[in-house]
């Protein structure tokens, strides 16, 4: 082995604690990159393979007019266009009820096929056979041969489950784009022969599902076909990207994509800083050696390559095992995730380029970190190097001392001046704090945000406890009000609609509430409360999506009934979940009487002391009631999942603290190493190890505390940017961080920084003064 390589290896071993910290940081960064990026690739591949296998549609046309299927099927860009019907109706499974959806499957369907996972496909001519969606079957322990009752205006009608199946449309069982987070025991799907669904009457919505030919220019063709469908009188269109299940799953996939960027940036950034600090110190310490070697004929290029090799070697030492571990972790994540979502086809894609890129990140990151110190070593002139070590920082009176009233003690002056003595190193310490704060606050901020948004949606906005669906449109709701424990009952209408403004259309849900409803509050972004009037209240995202403002008139087209009316925008509400529309029920009754009757339901609020389960059973036992859907179940489910969230934040907290630890530890040990002689001299003069430890602790904490405030600001904006990347018309992810979260985050990182001093402080205690003074160790 070449002697220079021996030197490199032994130098690294000499600083093994610092080097190990950097190696581990690179390892974690590269591993998380590989895991999240390959998981992203695997999930995408799993979905795409499933989509191809079942002929997942590229375009949906809802409330489609007769004959549109033929027109679209004849289009050269279209591979297949099929008509099918869907109807949202209550189900009764044993003694449990829910509002579900029956999806018609035409005989010989090639678009949106159902994959039968157990049992068999139904007989296309048998109106009483269904295939139960896997999520419904799992939530209600349905097996082949079981019976499910479906609500019809004539009463409950039993159907037999002949198979358990999966559809690309309901991989994530979303009811609609506006109700992405439906729970499996609150919403489920049955697949049935399409003629049987079409026979359900006016409630059945006629859809045309379209699959494009391979190789066509998707975006332009989809726009053209959608325009063609709308011109033919369709209610609405949406693409695969907008399809509710796919849109929800893409949010997750995007999350993995985001993480595959954020993690390497944070961790490799921290590792790079740590390496830079360590190597800068090493070059200073080896100044005389470099000068001697240069004097003996070592070329500048040899010096540069030698010091660059420290960064590259350290980067590779972390990146190679990190890339391997990332590939392994990606397999685990992909299997666990697709298993949890029940994606029928799991494709695990280990892209060879991912570990290669991971290793490259380590290599390039290490090289970049070492670049400046290596250049500095290279530029060192032998004659200059022989003049002795350069002083580490200049002494000068600081601004603090100038503005401080009275004279500071020598000890305080020393602390203040040392904190500012080497600005680059203090900045590196500060950056360690900032990176640690960022990692923790991004994840902790996610929890706070979800909790604040759930509180806004389910406590401040939604005031009802349950939504009641009926077998037939009810005339009188007084029976519900007489149920023991019910505090208030109001009629409500919920219907899918398209809102059209000029050439823009947005599909959403229209709610009709009493003008003075107590079941829903209409809050603006500035928390002002709006009242229902003659106009339409809409989610604030429609301001941009439709390009409308208060006072503008839009056209509302009701999906199931085809009723169309114009209505002015009366205001914009700011709601975390979905972008929906609200009208006065009486006004809706007047301008769209069919839907006001067909989709009429009731909202119920319980007394605070009542048992929700008892009331629910009583309500379900009321004549005419089909199902009772608790409106706050989602909040309860989210609370249950909070444990997982906390575990995630716990991991991030550990990683964030570790980041701060590694950087502060490195800067701290370098700080001490540079000052070994002066520390030894102070010890020789009688300053105790405890006094020195106190001085250095205060000095480091001063830098860390000074970095905390700007660090929290930076972390806040990074967290806000991270959240904003998930923000859409479906979810409003506006960052909310509680004041205490800032405090705990800052404390956690400061404690990590404080702990990182301990090895350095131990060195002070064990410092051999005689040896240091004799050898002038550098």
């Amino acid at each position, binding site marked *: 082995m070449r*002697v220079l390589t021996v030197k490199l290896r032994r130098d690294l071993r*000499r600083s093994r604690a610092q080097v190990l910290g950097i190696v581990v940081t690179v390892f974690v960064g590269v591993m998380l990159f590989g895991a999240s990026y390959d998981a992203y690739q695997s999930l995408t591949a799993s979905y795409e393979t499933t989509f191809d296998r079942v002929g997942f549609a590229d375009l949906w046309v809802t409330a489609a007019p007769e004959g549109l299927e033929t027109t679209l099927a004849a289009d050269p860009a279209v591979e297949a266009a099929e008509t099918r019907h869907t109807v949202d109706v209550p189900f009764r499974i044993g003694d449990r009820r829910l509002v579900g959806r029956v999806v018609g499957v035409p005989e010989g369907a090639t678009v949106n096929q159902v994959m039968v996972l157990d049992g068999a496909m139904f007989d296309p001519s048998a109106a009483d056979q269904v295939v139960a969606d896997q999520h419904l079957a799992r939530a209600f322990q349905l097996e082949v041969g079981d019976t499910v009752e479906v609500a019809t205006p004539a009463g409950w009608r039993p159907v037999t489950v002949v198979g358990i199946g999966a559809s690309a449309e309901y991989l994530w069982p979303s009811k609609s784009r506006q109700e992405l987070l439906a729970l499996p025991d609150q919403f489920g799907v049955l697949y049935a022969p399409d003629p049987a669904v079409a026979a359900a009457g006016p409630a059945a919505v006629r859809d045309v599902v379209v699959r494009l030919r391979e190789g066509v220019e998707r975006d332009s063709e989809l726009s053209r076909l959608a325009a063609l469908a709308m011109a033919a009188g369709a209610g609405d269109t949406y693409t695969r990207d907008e399809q509710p299940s796919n849109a929800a799953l893409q949010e997750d996939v995007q999350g993995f994509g985001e993480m595959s960027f954020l993690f390497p940036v944070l961790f490799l950034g921290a590792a790079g800083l740590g390496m830079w600090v360590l190597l800068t110190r090493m070059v200073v310490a080896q100044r*005389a*050696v470099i000068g*001697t070697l240069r*004097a*003996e*004929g070592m070329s500048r290029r040899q010096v540069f390559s030698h010091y660059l090799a420290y960064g590259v070697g350290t980067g590779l030492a972390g990146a190679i095992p990190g890339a391997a571990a990332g590939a392994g972790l990606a397999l685990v994540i992909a299997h666990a995730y697709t298993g949890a979502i029940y994606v029928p086809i799991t494709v695990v894609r280990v892209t060879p380029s991912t570990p290669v890129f991971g290793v490259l990140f380590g290599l390039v990151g290490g090289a970049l970190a070492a670049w400046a110190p290596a250049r500095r070593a290279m530029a060192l002139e032998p004659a200059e190097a022989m003049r002795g070590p350069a002083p580490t920082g200049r002494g000068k009176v600081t601004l603090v001392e100038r503005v401080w009233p009275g004279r500071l003690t020598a000890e305080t002056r020393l602390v203040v001046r040392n904190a500012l003595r080497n600005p680059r190193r203090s900045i590196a310490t500060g950056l360690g704090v900032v990176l640690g704060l960022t990692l923790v606050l991004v994840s902790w901020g996610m929890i706070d945000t979800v909790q604040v948004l759930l509180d806004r949606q389910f406590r401040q906005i939604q005031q009802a406890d349950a939504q009641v669906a009926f077998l037939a449109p009810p005339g009188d709701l007084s029976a519900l009000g007489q149920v023991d424990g019910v505090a208030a009952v109001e009629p409500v209408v919920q219907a899918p609609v398209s809102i059209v403004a000029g050439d823009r259309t947005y599909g959403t849900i229209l709610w009709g509430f009493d003008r003075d409803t107590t079941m829903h509050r209409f809050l603006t972004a500035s928390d002002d409360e709006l009242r229902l009037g003659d106009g339409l209240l809409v989610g604030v995202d429609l301001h941009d999506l439709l390009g409308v403002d208060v006072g503008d008139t839009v056209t509302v087209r009701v999906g199931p009934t085809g009723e169309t009316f114009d209505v002015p925008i009366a205001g914009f509400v700011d709601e975390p979940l979905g972008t929906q529309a609200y009208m006065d029920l009486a006004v809706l009754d007047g301008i769209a009487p069919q839907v006001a009757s067909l989709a009429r339901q009731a909202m119920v609020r319980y007394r605070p002391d009542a048992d929700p389960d008892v009331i629910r059973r009583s309500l379900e036992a009321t004549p005419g009631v089909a199902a009772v859907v608790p409106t706050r179940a989602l909040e309860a489910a989210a609370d249950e999942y909070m444990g997982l969230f906390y575990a995630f934040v716990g991991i991030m907290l550990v990683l964030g603290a570790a980041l701060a630890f590694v950087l502060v530890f490195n800067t701290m040990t370098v700080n001490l190493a540079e000052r070994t002689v002066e520390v030894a001299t102070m010890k020789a003069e009688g300053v105790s190890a405890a006094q020195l430890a106190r001085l250095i602790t205060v000095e480091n904490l001063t830098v860390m505390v000074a970095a905390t405030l700007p660090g929290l600001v930076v972390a806040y904006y990074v967290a806000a940017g991270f959240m904003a990347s998930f923000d859409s018309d479906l979810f409003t992810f506006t960052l909310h961080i509680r004041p205490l979260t800032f405090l705990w985050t800052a404390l956690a990182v400061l404690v990590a920084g404080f702990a990182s001093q301990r090895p350095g402080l131990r060195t002070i205690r064990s410092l051999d003064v005689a040896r240091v003074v004799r050898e002038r160790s550098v």
Partner: protein
Amino acid sequence: MSEMAVRAEGLARTYGTGAVAVDALVGVDLEIESGQFVVLLGPSGSGKTTLLNLVGAIDVPTAGHLEVDGIRLDGLDGEGRTRFRREHVGFVFQFFNLIPTLTALENVQLITELTGRDGSDQARAALEAVGMADRADHFPAALSGGEQQRVAIARAVAKRPRLLLADEPTGALDLETGRRVLDVISRLNRERAMTVLLVTHNAVIAEMADRVIRLRDGRIVADTLNPNPVAADRLEW
């Protein structure tokens, strides 16, 4: 006529510019024969280290002409100076500047490797020449000051330079150790016919030189030959 190891005419070195300019060396004319043991003597700031650095091509003159081993240094660029140092000179400094993570042998071998020579044998021979062969596998921390300096000398001569430049090589050593180090340098000068330029402020050391050049304020103030050099082990200070 003897071969000239060093030939300087009007050699000058100024540090800084304008009001803060310091003339470290002013118009030095000098010729040193090959194989001579020359001591550069003078107080701090007299310009002796500057002269040594210029001869060793680790510094660049601001004026004048300088030729070492027949090579004109004042016209060389950085690469050229590195090549010159690699092939023609060895340096010994007051502080030994050994790499603490390498053994004595590895410290020497590093230079032979870097300068493209066969590593191990030449390094061992150099350690042998300075009487350190039995300590070859020791790390610097396990060596005394004198031993470290002898390893530093071995490092300087392992590549067999024509010129050995020593800057206060005994400055950090006690009398006995210093004498041993000087003896090694003297032997190398005799046995290998290596030209030696040794900088010191210790006038006693001048007694072992063939020639003594005294400097003051950047100028040569005296240049004397010593017909009877004293052996290193007889020096007292």
